[in-house]
């Protein structure tokens, strides 16, 4: 039904709106990529340098004989000489980690979604998930070895048990913390059932879910290294096995060099993969204050 009464002049409304829009759009101060990378990087470099300095200082005091506590230079020499072996070992370990983490992500997501949406499941399983999360993964190994013998299966079992609860909990927290207004908006738009879950609930829970994945990765990596130390599979050379072998030969340089590789791989995946995904999502969702001014 078209109206006949005049309203305010359309051109005037347009002009007022575009004027207000120009004044009101928040202006974010964004620095160049290089500047941001550098401001992120230099404190880390300084910290690493300080750590190496303290390490070297302890070695210089002669607190322990050099064959037990070698200095950074000797360790990095060892690392350089064994780069091939360490790279193969790191590759095998990473492959196991990805398999275990992938499986944990699938299981954790299904359980998390179920617990968050089904009341009976929440009452029954909800608190058990947190309980599982606090259980040290190394406590699972005796059972895992009985069930799966000294095999890949035993390691995978423990890695999945270590990571899945964190991932499930991340999703549950994410869903629980969705602003009710967004759910109402979804219902008003006609989102029901699967469509509501896929198009509204899951994306709204994404920031916390990624947090859960990040934590799940940390648990998976820890459980895996513990597993590789306990469950030695001679056919596959891994970081855990390398650590164990070096220790048995009283090769302190090898032990520390392997530890550095474990640390660096963990940091790279945690910071670069999950950290940057986390930041990208938060920026997209407007959860980071970028010094916006209106």
């Amino acid at each position, binding site marked *: *039904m*078209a*109206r006949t*009464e*005049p*309203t*305010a*002049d*359309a051109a*005037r*409304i*347009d002009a*007022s*709106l*575009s004027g*207000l*829009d120009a004044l*009101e*759009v*928040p202006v*974010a101060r964004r620095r160049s990529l290089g500047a941001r990378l550098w401001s992120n990087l230099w404190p880390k470099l300084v910290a690493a340098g300080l750590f190496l300095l303290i390490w070297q200082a302890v070695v210089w005091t002669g607190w322990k004989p050099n064959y037990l506590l070698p200095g950074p230079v000797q360790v990095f020499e060892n690392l350089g000489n064994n780069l091939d072996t360490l790279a193969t070992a790191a590759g095998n370990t990473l492959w196991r980690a990805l398999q275990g983490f992938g499986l944990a992500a699938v299981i954790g997501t299904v359980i998390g979604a179920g617990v968050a949406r089904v009341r009976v499941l929440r009452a029954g399983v909800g608190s058990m998930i947190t309980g599982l999360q606090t259980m040290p993964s190394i406590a699972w190994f005796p059972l895992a070895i009985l069930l799966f013998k000294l095999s890949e299966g035993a390691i995978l079992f423990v890695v999945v048990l270590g990571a899945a609860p964190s991932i499930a909990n991340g999703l549950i927290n994410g869903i629980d913390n969705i602003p009710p*207004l*967004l759910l*109402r*908006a979804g*219902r*008003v*738009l*006609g*989102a029901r059932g699967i*469509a509501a879950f896929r*198009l*509204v609930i899951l*994306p*709204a829970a*994404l920031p916390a879910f990624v947090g859960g994945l990040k934590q799940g990765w940390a648990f998976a990596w820890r459980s895996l290294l513990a597993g590789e130390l306990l469950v030695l599979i001679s056919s596959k050379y891994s970081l855990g096995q390398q650590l164990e072998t070096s220790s048995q030969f009283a090769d302190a340089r090898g032990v520390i060099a392997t530890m550095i590789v474990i640390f660096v791989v963990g940091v790279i995946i945690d910071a670069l993969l999950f950290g940057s995904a986390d930041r990208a999502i938060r920026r*997209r*969702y*407007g959860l980071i204050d970028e010094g916006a001014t*209106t």
Partner: protein
Amino acid sequence: MIGASRRPAAAAPTPAPVPPPGIGVGGGALVRITEASKVYGDTANAVHALDRINLEVGAGEFVCLLGASGCGKSTLLNLVAGLDRPTAGSVDVAGRTSLMFQEAALFPWLTAAGNVELALQLDGMARRKRRARARALLAMVNLEEFGRKRPHELSGGMRQRVALARALAQQVDVLLMDEPFGALDAMTRDVLHDEVERIWRETGVGVLFVTHNVREAVRLGDRVVMLSSRPGTVIAEFPVDISRPRRIDSPEVATLAADITDQLREEVMRHGAH
């Protein structure tokens, strides 16, 4: 949701009129609320949110609901939007509704255009048609250049306009607005009044607009309906016979607004005495 009729889950005490065939629920009304009550809680400590409300919104009519706190304005809109059912009485809606809130409630993971496209997707529109339609809807609220922005990159007024475009994407017959401009500054609100009035005129939708701002109600409405508080019930109705375009600061608007404000204040004082 076409021709939806919302009645209490149990048998209604009052038989509601059967809508005649054709458009509307009778008498050209798009929304007909008949003796609708809403009670929360059980009999022991029941809260009467709405008490025997009678209200109609005709096709293309702009109705403003005015009331002090606790008048059940939002409850009433929920009933019309189909998010809730009346405890007694009936709410008949001929056609489709969409509800806008005081906050835009845009999905932060989608761009402005993405928010509109999601509404089209949930409405069942084919993927290839969505983009062009979303652009047209954003153009209608003068935001075609901001389709790629995310909600947090827009101002409060712009977010409300995206929410308006998203609501219009549902091909609504009745637009329900729950204090949509309550959180905006006066100047933006002023311009958005013009904008909503223009879109209302262009599209011919019926509007049920809830506000606690008397001047806003007089500025926009064909009719202003006043609700009492606790329980909410219709206590007065004011036809607004001021020609459009109106200005919120014109003497005619101010005079009628002053009248209505006096009555509203009496209603509020009635609650304070005891």
